[in-house]
């Protein structure tokens, strides 16, 4: 019943304009809402109330913060590379908006007398398009860190690039299973393929791996190493202020919404009504109603993000890389093989693979979760002198030299040393 790729590209220009403006507005409003929601929820998790002064329930707090940011002094460091410094926030913000253009918000509806899908556009490689555009956003962060001419920014930018590239790999591989099963990369068709069973149930390991890597991809706690306030003073945006900083902030929160929307689309049935509501109420999946289910699911994911932030401490860099490269990546690869085999066997042997997928998926997920939670055993000996980690040897005279050397109360200068102290000196 949902639209397919062929249904796109027939709209008059003014319908497209309306959709573009709507998508833009949704991104901005969703950002303002998410900031408020995050602050409120994380406050409740910490026994506080959170912002409650501006507007009803403090809803206008993020708007006020945005206005304040815009009115602040815009500082460009003298050592900064001016052109790149200005370009970087734009480069990270624009792709964030663009990715939302292929997210399906609902089925085909009647908009001012025209039948049109509730989705700006779709293409046969829509999810690939999202991944590609999201990668451009990384350039914004890396270039921003580099162009600032500051060590903190550079470190933050480098860490960010390493992190996002690492997690994009496992993220992409988690999506491969979806492509295999849906037989399409078009978002609208992937949603249509989840008419009966959500991919979160059929492809549980992919869902779990995607959920973990989307947190890494958006630089959110517990994977917020690039911005780690205590360590890097804000990371790549240390030197940014005023509207340029606001653009980075905006991009970060749109990305948060994007990965949540993508998770909804690819794993939680997109705009389909949850919990078999459509069985009880036939109209649940028609007209504009699916917007409720879509945004409900999206905000559920945002809430998961907030919950993670409220519960977990930041990971160490090596733990983070260990998780991404040594656990999520091999598990994704193995799972893709399983999906391909079961899918092929189902087609050749003509049986229903769903319960099989669910059962195998449960086992693989248990393995992934177990591996994630288990701390790797520490190496037997980490003392630097006995062949542990390659640390440089201590300089002659010990670690503390010069004026900082601890005082020793021996004989005064010019007085012959006592036997005991001369033994120490030698």
């Amino acid at each position, binding site marked *: 019943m949902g639209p397919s790729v062929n249904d796109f590209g027939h709209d008059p220009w003014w319908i497209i304009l309306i959709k573009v403006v709507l998508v833009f507005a949704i991104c901005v409003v969703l950002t303002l809402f998410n900031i408020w929601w995050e602050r409120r929820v994380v406050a*409740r998790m910490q*026994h506080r109330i959170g912002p409650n002064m501006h507007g009803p329930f403090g809803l206008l707090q993020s708007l006020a913060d945005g206005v304040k940011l815009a009115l602040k002094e815009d500082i460009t460091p003298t050592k900064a590379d001016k052109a790149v410094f200005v370009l970087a926030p734009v480069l990270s913000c624009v792709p964030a908006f663009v990715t939302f253009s292929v997210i399906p918000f609902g089925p085909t509806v009647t908009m001012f007398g025209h039948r049109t899908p509730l989705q700006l556009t779709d293409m046969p490689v829509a999810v690939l398009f999202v991944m590609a555009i999201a990668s451009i956003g990384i350039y914004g962060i890396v270039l921003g860190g580099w162009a600032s001419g500051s060590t903190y920014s550079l470190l933050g930018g480098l860490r960010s690039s390493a992190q996002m590239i690492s997690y994009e790999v496992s993220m992409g591989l988690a999506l491969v299973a979806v492509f295999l099963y849906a037989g399409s990369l078009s978002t609208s068709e992937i949603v249509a393929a989840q008419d009966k069973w959500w991919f979160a149930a059929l492809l549980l390991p992919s869902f779990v791996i995607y959920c973990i890597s989307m947190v890494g991809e958006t630089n959110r706690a517990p994977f917020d190493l690039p911005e780690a306030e205590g360590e890097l003073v804000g990371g790549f945006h240390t030197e940014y202020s005023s509207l340029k900083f606001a653009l980075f902030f905006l991009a970060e929160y749109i990305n948060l919404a994007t990965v949540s929307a993508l998770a909804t689309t690819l794993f939680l049935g997109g705009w389909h009504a949850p919990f078999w509501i459509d069985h009880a109420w036939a109209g649940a999946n028609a007209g504009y109603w699916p917007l409720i289910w879509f945004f409900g699911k999206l905000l559920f994911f945002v809430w998961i993000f907030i919950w993670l932030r409220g519960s977990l401490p930041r990971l160490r860099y090596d733990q983070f890389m260990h998780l991404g490269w040594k656990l999520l990546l091999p598990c994704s690869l193995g799972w893709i093989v399983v999906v391909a085999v079961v899918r092929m066997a189902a087609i050749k042997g003509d049986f229903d693979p769903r319960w099989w997928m669910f059962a195998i998926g449960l086992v693989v997920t248990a393995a992934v979760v177990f591996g994630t939670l288990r701390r790797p055993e520490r190496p*037997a000996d980490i003392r630097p002198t006995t062949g542990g980690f390659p640390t440089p040897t201590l300089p002659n005279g010990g670690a503390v030299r010069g004026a900082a050397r601890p005082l020793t109360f021996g004989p005064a200068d010019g007085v012959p040393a006592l036997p005991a102290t001369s033994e120490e000196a030698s």
Partner: protein
Amino acid sequence: MSESDQPKKKRSLKEQIWDPVAGFGVTFTTQFKKPVTEQYPMQKEPTAPRFHGRHQLNRHPDGLEKCVGCELCAWACPADAIYVEGADNSDEPDAEGNSQRFSPGERYGRVYQINYLRCILCGLCIEACPTRALTMTNEYELADDSRASLIYEKQDLLAPLLPGMEQPPHPMRLGDDEQDYYAPEPRTELFEVPGRETR
């Protein structure tokens, strides 16, 4: 002996699997508990009864000041926030016929300043005060926007005149000398220590 020398403890399955995720339950349930936040500027909660707030210079029942200008509070202050200048009382009226007595006894605090930019509200001055002239109130809203206004002068610190009190300077109303103000019937038994000779 370093950590690595000790025999390794094998972690149980609960420690490996459950403990890392137990924190999620804490944050989840806390969401539905009542927050502890106080709506401070709109809704002011009373402080603890012995809260260390702004200081107050107390008065005797007839309105004379209790402060004798001894400067013990200033000496006790670890933050050097108190400045006191004492002066002599006199029972001789001045040229205009006004009394020159501000407190019972010989001396009174002519200048009394507390610098609330320095004060840490520790209360050592209160302990040092021999006449209970200096005490602390529960008032805690001490913020201001200039340095000068945060140096409280004597008139800012003095307790208000209650009914029956008279604005000093005026002669002693409760007796002929200061002993009538402090200890009408000295309770020497409080200070007696067994085995020590008392005067």
